[in-house]
């Protein structure tokens, strides 16, 4: 992005009809570490890459439980994300208090989007520098939304945000048609595979990623490290191919150990591991 005379204020339009401050805010999202989401008819899975600043510090929390039926993964300025999560939690609690029923996900994301839009139209504010992947379940089924700093929001079958998310997106684009009918465990496996794409050859372990699931009969919960590591070990040992359906997973389970490096290189060759 380039500096120009129209980008100081969020309330200044450029001659080409752009609000540069808003676009710069979206850049902040692209700089954050990756977060991905995918959904089936009954479940939604969120996954994110946790990079700690140093070995001495703890990982940043990027996935937040908003309510029993809604969770959010963030990328970008995590402080902004924390504040927005608190807002979302508060909205869910107030709605639950008034109506004694869970806040529909679609309503929450609209409120979130309107809140973001306000910051694009006040000279004394700045846009939130965080992208949110909102995963939730309500009467109309499982939903995954992406909320932009611009105030836009979209519903997705699967999506990835943050740095090197294009690699994950390419993987998801290949697989997404099977997601609606996927089982919960297959969804989680696909999420781990997508995360692995963003790591670009770095070893996938449970210490660098976080997985969370929400679904029919399952309240939003973040999987603990042991469970995630067990899942990673399962598919690393049984072969490198992602489970496209049940029988393929069984087949892969029966295969002899394939050299992880070889298969990893083959997967990378298919994907286009480019930054935006």
């Amino acid at each position, binding site marked *: 992005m380039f500096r120009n005379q129209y980008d100081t204020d969020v309330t200044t339009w450029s001659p080409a009809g752009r609000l540069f401050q808003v676009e710069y805010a979206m850049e902040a999202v692209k700089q954050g570490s990756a977060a991905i989401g995918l959904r089936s008819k009954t479940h939604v899975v969120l996954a994110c890459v946790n990079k700690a600043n140093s070995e001495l510090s703890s990982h940043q929390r990027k996935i937040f*439980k908003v309510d029993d039926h809604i969770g959010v993964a963030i990328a970008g300025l995590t402080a902004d994300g924390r504040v927005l999560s*608190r807002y979302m*939690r*508060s909205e869910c*609690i*107030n709605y*639950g*208090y008034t109506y004694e029923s869970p806040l529909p996900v679609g309503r929450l994301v609209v409120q979130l989007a309107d809140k973001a839009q306000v910051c694009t139209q006040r000279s004394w504010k700045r846009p939130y520098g965080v992208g949110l992947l909102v995963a939730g379940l309500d009467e109309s089924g499982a939903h995954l939304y992406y909320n932009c700093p611009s105030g836009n929001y979209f519903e997705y079958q699967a999506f990835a945000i943050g740095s090197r998310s294009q690699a994950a997106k390419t993987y998801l684009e290949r697989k997404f048609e099977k997601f609606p009918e996927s089982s919960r465990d297959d969804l989680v496996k696909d999420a781990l595979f997508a995360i692995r794409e963003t790591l670009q050859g770095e070893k996938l372990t449970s210490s660098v990623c976080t997985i969370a699931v929400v679904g029919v009969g399952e309240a939003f919960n973040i999987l603990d490290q042991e469970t995630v590591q067990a899942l990673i070990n399962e598919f690393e040992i049984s072969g490198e191919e992602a489970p496209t359906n049940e029988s393929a997973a069984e087949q892969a389970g029966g295969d002899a150990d394939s050299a992880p490096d070889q298969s990893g290189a083959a997967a990378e060759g298919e994907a286009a591991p480019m930054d935006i």
Partner: protein
Amino acid sequence: MTKEHANWSPYDNNGGTCVAIAGADYCVIAADTRMSTGYSILTRDYSKICKLADKSYMASSGFQADVKALQKVLSSRHLIYQHQHNKQMSCPAMAQLLSNTLYYKRFFPYYAFNVLGGLDSEGKGCVFTYDAVGSYERVGYSAQGSGATLITPFLDNQLKSPSPLLLPAKDAVTPLSEAEAVDLVKTCFASATERDIYTGDSVEIIILNAKGVRSETEQLRKD
């Protein structure tokens, strides 16, 4: 010049009795299920007990609309606490929260007479008893509501609570076993039902211990 008085009251008394007893490693919380107004019965099957947290149960008699509002406020506050602290509220913490919530409406009180029962962080039974504006005390046992005056002297006799003025402070929890305490509660309600017109129909008993939570219902006289 006599002052004009309102010809309606924002309050009503729906009657009922609540009891809680603390044991060494359990807590029993009980309340009858009759809801009345005046001399009529509104329903024979209304629960006055609310789970506020894994280890905190509140039983409240009085004006049930205020009780319901109070339960909702506390449940929402507990959700906020869980989001902020990533864990459930302890029973003593909930006790303080209830006190503060009641006093918040000191000048238009919740017409609710509460008994909070649960397990403290050491796993020991704890019971807290309240008045309508939040004055509270941790005790070994308590009764509130229309049958309280009939039950409290009986519990005083059976549970022989040591004086809170003793030094060193003696534990108020009863040495009775869980089964004995549950039986005692049933006896209390059976007796109160005989003489208190607002108590009866059935009693809902919640038993909290280290293994989890259990619920019992015992039928009472329906007259």
